[in-house]
């Protein structure tokens, strides 16, 4: 029995890129940019109702608000495989149609490029984040399940205790590094669980890296360097970092199977 990556050429079921701004985009500008964004998104994408909760800390009362056309601007494709967000302090694209890195960054630029130009006239990027959710399904059942055929024998990201349980487990790792005078957050979550429906094992590996500028103790960034080119270069750097990270988690044979070295 063996693991199968969830997609034919790779194992990525979801990929998300997020840019967080140093401060909120002014509301008037944001409303205009949300309209602009709606024109650059693919056909079949519609804006979703904005749902919010409000707290009154003096009474403890919680109220729910569902309004059409309020901030932030959230858009979703009809099949829910693409989600776009332009919030006062961030923008984000999450897709379940990831194919390869080149088209991903190209599409990100075509969807958000014009809007980002407008955003960066008012605020600077504070952090850039890239996330991958990879999934591998076991071809057998729990009786013959062997997670070591997917994860490296000496996994740095798995607490040893979880391996002596009944086979289903979750582990979480997160840490900070200093990279290019930025604070890099790295996050690794691994879930071994049942697929819904058939009770067969599946392994989900969530990896995230986020580079954040001007964090005390990590060094300063020149304000003039925090521009569109900064976002593009950090995305590329994060992509390479996440590829190496996944290669450190899974066995070399699977890394080759999903084209991690290409």
């Amino acid at each position: 029995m063996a693991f199968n990556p969830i997609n034919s050429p790779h194992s990525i079921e979801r990929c998300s890129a997020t840019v967080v701004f140093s401060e909120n985009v002014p509301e008037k500008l944001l409303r205009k940019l949300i309209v602009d964004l709606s024109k650059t998104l693919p056909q079949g994408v519609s804006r979703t109702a904005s749902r919010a909760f409000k707290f009154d800390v003096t009474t403890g009362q919680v109220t729910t608000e569902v309004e059409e056309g309020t901030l932030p601007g959230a858009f979703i494709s009809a099949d829910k495989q693409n989600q776009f967000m332009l919030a006062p302090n961030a923008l984000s694209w999450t897709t379940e149609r990831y194919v390869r890195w080149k088209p991903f960054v190209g599409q990100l630029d075509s969807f958000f490029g014009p809007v980002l130009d407008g955003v960066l006239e008012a605020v600077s990027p504070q952090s850039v984040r890239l996330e991958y959710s990879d999934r591998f399904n076991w071809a057998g059942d729990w009786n013959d399940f062997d997670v070591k055929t997917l994860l490296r024998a000496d996994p740095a990201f798995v607490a040893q205790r979880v391996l002596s349980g009944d086979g289903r487990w979750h582990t979480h790792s997160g840490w900070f590094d200093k990279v290019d005078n930025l604070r890099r957050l790295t996050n690794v979550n691994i879930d071994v669980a049942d697929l819904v429906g058939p009770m067969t094992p599946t392994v989900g590996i969530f990896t995230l890296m986020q580079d954040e500028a001007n964090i005390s103790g990590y060094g300063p960034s020149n304000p003039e360097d925090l521009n569109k080119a900064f976002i593009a270069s950090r995305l590329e750097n994060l992509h390479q970092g996440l590829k190496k990270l996944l290669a450190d988690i899974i066995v070399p044979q699977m890394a080759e199977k999903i084209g991690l070295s290409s």
Partner: protein
Amino acid sequence: MSVVTNPTVLVADSIPATTKLGTFRSNDLNITNMSIPFQLMNWATSGQNTQVVSSSILRALGRPSTPQWYTADAWLSETLSALRSFRGTQSGWDGENSHAPIPETLDAAEMLSAFFSEAPADRRPSVNVGPDGFPSFARNVADFYLHLVVEPRRHPSNCIANLTWYAIRNGEKVFEEGVPFDGTSLPKELSSLLNSDDL
């Protein structure tokens, strides 16, 4: 509730430590698979206002977790599988005198599929590999015909392949030959052909 002065902490106190916020389809960009303490720490240091944080958490709690079944786009899955099936094939793969596909053209075809997957469903073309070893995409429906061939790049440049296509849209015939494709965007003419609303 031990702390009532800060809504963020108040909400955090009310969430079981094992609650996971990141396994659902959220339209909130700040929800990830990170643990709650990690998310809160991240939020707290990222200058988010507490109302956004609180709303995010409550939205997460109010939704069921994502089914673990991942439903891939059927057209995209079939296209990528078809292309993958041609990887490593040798000359004569069709039992006659066919040429082996060049890996770079298969790579380019994969990248094209990322863009085609964003086109309206009735214009997404089917993939094939011809006896010349070149991947091709074709679609023939009312008022729309497309036959596109992915050819090896002709000149050293940042392009990864050249595209040649013949199309008929609303009776208008279009032929483009050897248009460079760099993998990051569709040639403008092709994008217009696939995505314009004038059909």
